[in-house]
């Protein structure tokens, strides 16, 4: 039937319809899920990806794995995009999204085979999702009104437990929490007020605030700068609270290696996005002179223009000059004489962040409205001290005690570059989680506890539905169990037995009237010993928002793919279209 002639349609391409395409899509989704499956959970393992040049990437991050794999199948690509979306929105839980989505698809496909129309399945999944989300909000969410460090650290630990830095989670979770907090503390009053507003509204109606949560989201993470330098051990990574590090070294050896504030004067940093080179006219500008003496003066003027600029910057009080462009050797001398640290060819993004952190501005031109050149001292950023530090084989400029908005730098150290890259990704996830927690103030137990509880709840809920959706909701309930199951399988435990135990405990908790049994809803897996414990007490927690989002994304993806019943692949059009 995939023959174009038999369908009566003459398409320059191939067409698949009905069950064929559905089976194909589901198989593809499962294949994608299988790839990332083993990286889930605290005992998940890493993947090594080698590209055609031979560059190596070692990672445990679901989004990164999928991004790097060349997924060709269109339906599988939907899943990959979805994981990316989760990565952008929440920053964590990418692996679980893919796994849940593929499980929903598999079960959905089976239902279709049993003669249930896809639209029924879709509406069933929607109902189930709605019920699940409201259950999480009502029952599972723990509101942490005064969020102690302990909970933040626990959440960070949970997120990094599956990653390469998991073994040093005590150290890194503290690093992550400190980093996020240091950013928050330095935020202006308006920002702090914003946080509070967000926090309270979110705890009441967590999902509603999501759309406007986006701007908030960018602020802290961009202020945390992660620098990687290989050498030493991962435990030698450190946080420069309220500081900033730039991967640049002073341009001339005659410059001081550090400047610090004296008598209450802060160290002033000028951030430039312009050349401090001998001035030259733009392309195509020709100067034609009649008098040969003029040419000499032009030459002299060229040098003087830059000198005057530098003089203005120095007179404005700058102690440190950073520029994204070049600095001429002949200009270097003025800085050396003034005892100023000057670094050239800095990363522009870094400078922008530094400008924010120190309360300065990146200056692109010195021209003012009157056509003169001035350097506004307001553009200068302030900090306590700047020094050049040798790290490994190179040097970096550390800026301590920034005076502007919050900024922090985490300097990661590790055995080699692959390890550093992976540490960076892992830490990024944890930072996202901590930030989410700080914003939303709510958390849910991890380790499969939420999924098991939902599964039991949805099963009961299904029985109250009289329509065809009942079966679908039941399948949805079963599909959620894939998370505890995969966790147990990865830990090489008896998955069936553990999950059965977990379910029965949750069922007991939900059906019992007893107050004591209510706490049973926080029971989750202990993957190290292969037992069941209260994960809230054990400190395995996740931000509620992350859980809800991952359910939403997974369901949406499953629905999108299930709706497809026809696939047309066009051949490459030859000749003019």
């Amino acid at each position, binding site marked *: 039937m995939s023959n174009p002639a038999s369908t009566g349609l003459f398409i320059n391409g191939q067409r698949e319809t009905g069950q064929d395409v559905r089976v*194909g899509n589901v198989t593809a989704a499962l294949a994608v899920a299988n790839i990332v499956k083993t990286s889930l959970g605290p005992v998940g393992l890493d993947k090594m990806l080698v590209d055609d040049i031979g560059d190596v990437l070692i990672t445990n991050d679901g989004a990164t794995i999928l991004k790097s794999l060349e997924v060709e199948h269109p339906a599988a690509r939907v899943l990959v995009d979805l994981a990316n979306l989760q990565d952008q929105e929440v920053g964590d839980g990418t692996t679980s999204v893919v796994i849940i989505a593929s499980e929903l698809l598999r079960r959905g496909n089976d239902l279709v085979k049993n003669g249930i129309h896809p639209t029924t399945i879709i509406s069933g999944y929607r109902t189930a999702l709605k019920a699940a989300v409201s259950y999480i909000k009502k029952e599972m969410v723990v509101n942490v009104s005064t969020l102690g460090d302990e909970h933040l650290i626990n959440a960070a630990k949970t997120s990094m437990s599956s990653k390469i830095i998991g073994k040093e989670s005590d150290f890194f979770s503290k690093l992550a929490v400190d980093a996020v907090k240091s950013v928050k503390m330095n935020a202006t009053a308006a920002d702090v007020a914003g946080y509070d507003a967000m926090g309270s509204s979110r705890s009441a109606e967590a999902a509603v605030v999501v759309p406007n949560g986006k701007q908030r989201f960018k602020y802290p993470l961009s202020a945390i700068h992660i620098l990687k330098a290989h*050498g030493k051990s991962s435990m030698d990574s450190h946080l420069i609270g309220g500081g900033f590090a730039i991967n640049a070294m002073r341009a001339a050896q005659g410059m001081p290696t550090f400047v610090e504030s004296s008598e209450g004067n802060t160290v002033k940093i000028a951030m430039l996005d312009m050349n401090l080179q001998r001035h030259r006219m733009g392309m195509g500008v020709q100067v034609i002179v009649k008098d040969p003496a003029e040419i000499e003066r032009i030459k002299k003027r*060229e040098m003087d223009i830059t000198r005057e600029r530098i003089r203005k910057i120095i007179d404005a009080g700058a102690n440190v000059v950073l520029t994204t462009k070049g600095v001429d050797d002949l200009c270097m001398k003025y800085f050396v004489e003034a005892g100023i640290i000057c670094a050239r060819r800095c990363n522009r993004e870094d400078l922008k962040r530094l400008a924010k952190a120190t309360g300065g501005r990146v200056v692109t031109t010195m021209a003012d409205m009157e056509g003169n050149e001035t350097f506004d001292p307001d553009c200068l950023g302030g900090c306590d001290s700047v020094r050049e530090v040798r790290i490994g084989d190179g040097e970096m400029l550390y800026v301590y005690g920034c005076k502007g908005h919050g900024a922090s730098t985490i300097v990661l150290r590790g055995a080699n570059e692959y390890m550093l890259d992976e540490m960076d990704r892992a830490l990024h996830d944890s930072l996202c989680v901590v930030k989410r927690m700080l914003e939303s103030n709510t958390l849910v137990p991890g380790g499969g506890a939420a999924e098991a509880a939902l599964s039991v709840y949805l099963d009961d809920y299904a029985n109250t539905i009289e329509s065809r959706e009942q079966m679908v909701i039941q399948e949805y309930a079963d599909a959620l169990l894939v998370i505890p199951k995969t966790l147990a399988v990865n830990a090489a435990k008896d998955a069936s037995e553990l999950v059965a135990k977990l379910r029965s405990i949750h069922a007991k908790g939900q059906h019992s009237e007893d107050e004591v049994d209510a706490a049973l809803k926080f029971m989750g897996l202990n993957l190290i010993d292969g037992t069941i414990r209260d994960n809230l007490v054990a400190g395995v927690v996740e931000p509620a928002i992350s859980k809800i989002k991952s359910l939403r994304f997974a369901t949406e993806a499953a629905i999108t793919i299930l709706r497809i019943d026809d696939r047309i692949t066009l051949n490459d059009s030859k000749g003019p279209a």
Partner: protein
Amino acid sequence: MASQGPPPGMGPIMVLNSKTQRSQGRQAQLGNINAARAVADIIRSTLGPRSMLKMLLDPMGGIVITNDGNCILREVDVSHPTAKSMIELSRAQDEEVGDGTTSVIILAGEMLINAEPFVRTNIHPTVIVRGYNYALQEALEICEKLALVVDVNDIDKMKSLVQSCIGTKFSSRWNDTMIDMALKAVLTVSRAIPMPVGSDSYSQKMEVDIKRYAKVEKIPGGEISDCTVLSGVMFNKDVTHSKMRRRIENPRILLLDSPLEYKKGESQTNVEITDEEDWNTLLKMEEEYVENMCMEIIAFKPDIVITEKGVSDLAQHYFAKANITAFRRLRKTDNNRVARATGATIVSRTDEIREEDIGTGCGLFEMRKIGEEYFAFFEECKDPKACTIILRGGSKDVLNEIERNLSDAMQVVRNVVFDPRLLPGGGATEMAVSVGLRKAGLKLEGIQQGPFLAVGEAMEVIPRTLSQNCGVSVIRTVTQLRAKHAAAYEEAEKTGGEDAFPKCNWGIDGTTGKLVDMEEFGIWEPFSVKIQTIKTAVESACMILRIDDIVSGSKKRGH
């Protein structure tokens, strides 16, 4: 309908690019371990005083003769991703501490090899990783206890330290010269830097910039014993004009980074000449420009003028007349060194020269001819903070190897200047850690115990390789050594209770293969190098163990 398997006519569903290759699970893990073993085996024979050199041929036909671990691995072209990641380790080690590049690979390889039985018996890699990490912490503690603080100014102690480090190298026959050179070079370029308030643990009290200020000049010819460290700098340039003076005592030196010739402006300028007169003025102006610059320079009465750019014939003429020796086209880095050695400041505009820019720190300037080339020597500097090391030797390859040895030695000195703690060498530290881990491991509960003990066993690879390379009975020597350390432990426990820690410094004399007390024998290694080696080895082993899936052939990221 086609519910089982792929529908007819459609073929298998291709999710991934068909060109990608995957290896999964056990196969990937064992493959990684084998790759690591292969890398470690390449350089195993280059450890210790009885080490052998490797000769490497590159595709262009060039040869490298070395026993420097990092250098060997850099040249070896490997394709296995894990092997590549191993090679990265030695690079990181080289950059961070500059020594121990061979040990780090051998140790990391051994850590992985020792993990193989656990992988085969289905112990989960995360459990192994956890065990390894406990062991790492424990090992670091043992090292801390074993460390000995050295006085940096104690020349004898420092010498023996450097000796143990480059004792394994090719240049060991000229050990004393090498050691003196390394010490002198590093102490010359080291300078104390003032500490700012609010500095963190990363700030150093000392600044030792070997890379920039201790330049190694290799001149083929002569003997290795002719190598020296100048108390000043030297560069391979001849004077620009043959009439200029070739020997000046206490010269006044002026450094420039601008050209001493006529140069057009940056902007495009055209001159329209309508008059013949103008043409002459133009030419004259150019000459005047150069003359002007020269006069400005001459006004300060320097004896030597060095510039990074060109010097025109006209300028040479003026200088020769004013009895000034001039050099042109010096490299920026060389110029920096001269500046630091003589106390001059590099000037970029001749009209901005000031008296304090002139360097007077140099005691003697002399041109010397070595072989067929002329070299400018700036010697007898007062308090030089930069130096040049001259290496002489039979051939280029020999010189290259000596340079590598010397840079290792200098790095060792630098590390000790930063962190004056030492650990016994000759496999003594490794054996102490191994025995210590065994003691601690038996008290550990859970499945981590196995991997924990494995780290201890893996540490023994260093004494084992040492004895293997010098050709004595490996098993006998290593067991004897182990017994020595274990006995020391029991001794300490008897006298000092459960937590007593014995300072047992017995190790292997890498030349004879006998057991010696390193304290008497005088083989020490910097604490920072040892610690870095152990940390890097364990961490990288953990990273590799955690991999269970290798996908190769995917395109560059970002597509």
